[in-house]
């Protein structure tokens, strides 16, 4: 039994390593080839965990081979448009000016429920509000609303920028750990941070979360007493 548990741990480490090699892009948005790799990896790993007669290498090598092939194919796709079309397919236009392309729906085998569901995920509840909708190669529907249905922006209202920086607030202290890279990104100095903490009568270790933006506007959440004791 302990052998099974140890094999599982080894395989877990191998899969995590393999997925790290695959990269974040693949984890976030699965292309057809990536989906195949993900399913195969899980199946191959299960075989070795269930059957101790199968050598561990018999699972680890195919997993790394699959992931390596996947990365190589993604590089080829990146370099060659033809390969991209062959492996990932093309995006398809599904709605033009509020009108559904029924022929394309049949080709994609999408029902009207599929379309409306995907539109709702884009915050669009009426097909007539769609100016343009494209089915991406990953299977997601990207929709561009008509002007009348678009949310109002500062640009539409001709509101001038109020000097607020475009960069969002960043986490400077996470569970008592200072992120120096974030401070550098925000153009802030450590001296400033320690001065603020002194004013707030806390140390870095006492802070659960501290966020800050480029205008040095910050918010501090102190650790609860129970967590501080640990």
């Amino acid at each position, binding site marked *: 039994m302990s052998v099974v548990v140890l094999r599982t741990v080894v395989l877990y480490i191998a899969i995590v390593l393999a997925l790290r090699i695959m990269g974040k892009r693949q984890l976030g948005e699965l292309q057809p080839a990536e989906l195949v790799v993900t399913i195969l990896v899980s199946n191959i790993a299960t075989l070795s965990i269930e059957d101790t007669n199968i050598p561990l290498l018999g699972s680890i090598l195919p997993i*790394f081979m699959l992931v390596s092939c996947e990365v190589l194919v993604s590089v080829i796709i990146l370099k060659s448009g033809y390969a991209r079309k062959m492996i990932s397919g093309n995006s398809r236009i599904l709605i033009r000016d509020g009108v559904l392309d029924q022929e394309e729906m049949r080709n994609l085998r999408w029902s009207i429920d599929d379309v409306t569901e995907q539109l709702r995920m884009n915050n669009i509840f009426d097909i007539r509000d769609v100016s343009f909708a494209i089915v991406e190669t990953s299977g997601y529907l990207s929709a561009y609303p008509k002007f009348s249905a678009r949310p109002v922006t500062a640009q539409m209202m001709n509101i001038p920028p109020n000097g607020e920086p475009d960069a969002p607030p960043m986490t400077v202290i996470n569970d008592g750990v200072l992120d120096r890279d974030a401070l550098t990104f925000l153009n802030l100095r450590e001296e400033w941070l320690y001065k603020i903490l002194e004013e707030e009568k806390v140390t870095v270790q006492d802070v659960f979360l501290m966020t800050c933006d480029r205008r040095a506007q910050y918010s501090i959440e102190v650790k609860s007493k129970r967590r501080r004791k640990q």
Partner: protein
Amino acid sequence: MKRFYICLAVIAGIIGVCIFSMHRVSEMKDRVDTYAQAVFTAVEEEDYEKTLASVRELTTYWEEEHKVLVRYIRHAQVDDISRSMFKLESLARYKAYHDLTAELSSIVWQANQIWDSERINVGNVM
């Protein structure tokens, strides 16, 4: 591009392991064959001491080889040979030469089977 080169290195490593394992299995098949031939010859000559020594040589070799083979060959295949292998000494000691040669033939056949299943050819790939 860093990942691309990591993957090339991983693939090179995997190919290396495959070549090593094939070489090892091929060597195992040849050595089992050679040791078995030595036993067959000793049995034909009805030389008790030589038979026993040849069998011991084969089983000692197999004890070491078994540890390496189970890392990349299905354990059941290797275990079948081991099971037969450890009968050999008793059979030789008690001069059960008929059973000894039968068991030995089975071992040679199984070793060849492992080699056949590891070889790169259309039949195995398909």
